[in-house]
């Protein structure tokens, strides 16, 4: 065969070249319109940087009176406690939902119902859930526990259900074929296959929950967030930066612990 007789081009997702260019143009156009419409003009950004720099100087040095210091510690412990409790309650609620939301082991109607529950939990940001929880049970850590439990379910059930869907069904079938009951089949066929992932997800969610618990206090759901809001409202920037440093320290420790534990398990 003479050279150049075979025409070859890399297969493309676009049926025609014109469609490709039109798509790219549309995407770029949408970005430009968004920036214009939201008023994100370069001039305003520069001005903002100046303001932020001025504010940053107010943040230094971080300072807290002894009373404020006790308040930070007290409320930070509350945040961590909220995270611990709601990680536990969240996982307890999540596990049955995860099993029911796994397509390969759950009947269709149950699967749909539980996937729906998960979708609802994932649809709302923690702050929105916290506002509703505060309305329901009043200010304080209980609202925080409800919020984070609810958010944990959306995350934990979804990821665990996906892991259950990925297991080797052959082993499950073998347990069933030997005469195991449905619960025994779960215990011997399914659970051993998802245990490592379960442990990893639990620690990961614990670390996310610590981060969440430091912020939901802003809407009154307990923890360090409320102190942060008060400090901002009083323009007490030294105090604000002391609180922020405390939050950063706790979150870093939680992330570190989480990373180490997860590495050990996988």
């Amino acid at each position, binding site marked *: 065969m003479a050279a150049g007789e075979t025409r070859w081009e890399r297969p493309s997702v676009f049926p025609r070249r014109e469609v490709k260019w039109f798509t790219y143009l549309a995407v770029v156009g949408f970005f430009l319109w968004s920036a214009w419409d939201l008023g994100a003009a370069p001039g305003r950004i520069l001005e903002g940087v100046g303001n932020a720099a001025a504010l940053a100087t107010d943040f230094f040095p971080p300072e807290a009176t002894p009373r404020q210091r006790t308040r930070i510690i007290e409320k930070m412990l509350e945040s961590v406690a909220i995270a611990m409790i709601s990680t536990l309650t969240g996982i307890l609620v999540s596990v049955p939902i995860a099993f029911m939301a796994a397509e390969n082991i759950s009947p269709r109607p149950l699967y749909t119902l539980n996937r729906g529950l998960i979708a609802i939990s994932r649809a709302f940001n923690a702050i929105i859930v916290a506002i509703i929880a505060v309305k329901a049970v009043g200010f304080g850590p209980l609202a925080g526990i409800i919020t984070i439990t609810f958010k944990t379910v959306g995350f934990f059930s979804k990821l665990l259900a996906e892991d259950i869907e990925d297991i080797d069904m*052959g082993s499950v079938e073998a347990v069933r074929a030997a005469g*195991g009951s449905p619960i025994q089949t779960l215990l011997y066929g399914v659970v051993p296959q998802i245990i490592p992932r379960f442990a990893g997800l639990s620690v990961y969610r614990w670390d996310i929950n610590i981060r969440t618990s430091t912020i939901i206090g802003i809407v009154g759901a307990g923890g360090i967030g409320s102190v942060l809001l008060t400090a901002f409202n009083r323009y007490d920037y030294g105090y604000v930066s002391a609180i922020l440093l405390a939050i950063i320290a706790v979150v870093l420790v939680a992330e570190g612990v989480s990373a180490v534990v997860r590495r050990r398990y996988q």
Partner: protein
Amino acid sequence: MLAVSNLEKTYSTGDEALKGVDLAVEGSETVAMIGPSGAGKSTFIRCVNRLTEPTAGSVELDGTELTTLDDDALRAARRDIGMIFQEYNLVERLTVMENVLTGQLGYVSTWQAFRRNFPPETVDRAADILDRVGLGGMADKRVDELSGGQRQRVGIARAVIQEPKILLVDEPTSSLDPETSETVMELLTDIAAERGVPVLINIHEVDLALDHADRIVGLHDGELVFEGTPDELDEAGLDTVYRGADPDRLTDRATNGSQPAEGDRVVVNTTDAASGGV
């Protein structure tokens, strides 16, 4: 004794995997079912213990009709049916012992199962069987540390501890090298013979079937097209099983005026094939 009659399976996709198959496995014989991929061998075996629900037909094990059992009765019946799988189907993250004891789950409560609290006799029996299959001392190894041949030995032990009335074996050697296949088949048939358990085995390696089976049945496109001893399986028989019915034989049947009825089968006759071979 396992007696299957007129077994049919049509999948929801419309595929007719089994078109009325009759088969009996009795005493302590080893019956090998051969046939090309897609002939319905696995479907047949899976319909016996209803891992796949048959569409029509009857499956009787020692006089109990299995196809109509409710969930509880089916679980009880499955305790008496050992199954060995192509991909071993062990739980990789459990130990060898836990995998073997899985064969006894039907006899303990869920709580006992959860606590791994099996009766001491059962554990003794499991240890004996592990010795027998050559895995003595490996009870606490996790299955994912084992080789393929060792895994299939665990699979055999799990089925044998059930003290089954029949062993269903689905392509036990397809994931193994030829030498390991031979030893695994040898072990499987020996252990079944020692215990007097009949074996129904799906296998596509005809040589292994010829060496180890008492009787061979051939499945082609959902129909039983051959039945006979290993000696009776000749070239013509293999042709029938792997390439569809022999045209000559079809003509014979047509002239005899008998249309192939449901469950009809060609029983290959050695002398006939020798004279009329292609």
